[in-house]
């Protein structure tokens, strides 16, 4: 196979960057939103209790579903994007 040109490399690098950037941004927003929604802000100890654990799980699942609905409505191809 022919080695990719400089321009092709630059493009694939840019795409990889964008993909990473997108995923990190999504993860960070999911984490902070679910922290806001699920944590008891009095912070009586340093562990998640049972309720907080299951809240975080469900929160992630619902957040993911919202990305799906938005993605569909935007006509984006694929689920995760």
């Amino acid at each position, binding site marked *: 196979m022919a080695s990719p040109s400089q321009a092709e490399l630059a493009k694939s690098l*840019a795409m990889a960057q*964008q993909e990473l950037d997108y995923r990190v941004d999504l993860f960070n927003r999911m984490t902070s939103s679910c922290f806001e929604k699920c944590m008891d802000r009095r912070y009586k100890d340093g562990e998640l209790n049972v309720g907080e654990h299951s809240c975080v799980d469900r929160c992630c699942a*619902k957040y993911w*579903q919202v990305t799906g609905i938005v993605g569909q409505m935007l006509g984006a191809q694929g689920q995760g994007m």
Partner: protein
Amino acid sequence: MNSAMEGMEDLPEAQRNALLQKIEELQVRDSLRTYNSVVERCFVDCVSSFRSKNLDSTEERCVTYVLRKVFEACARVGMRFGEMSSQSEQQMQQ
């Protein structure tokens, strides 16, 4: 802030293409961030019960409403933004 774009016609083709590609990349990046911020707004404003791991019908409907409102607002701000930008540029050229 316009000098960079105005100089573009003077660039040789290869360099102009490099510049345009970079700008296109930035636009993709920005639209992905916008997508994420819209998702976040829909989620934060519409979802507040975590007894189930699936969205209920009220939450789903809310998400679609917020989304449509965001788009409409965004388009409207875009129009105003464009008008005000070009007015400012005209004033600067006088």
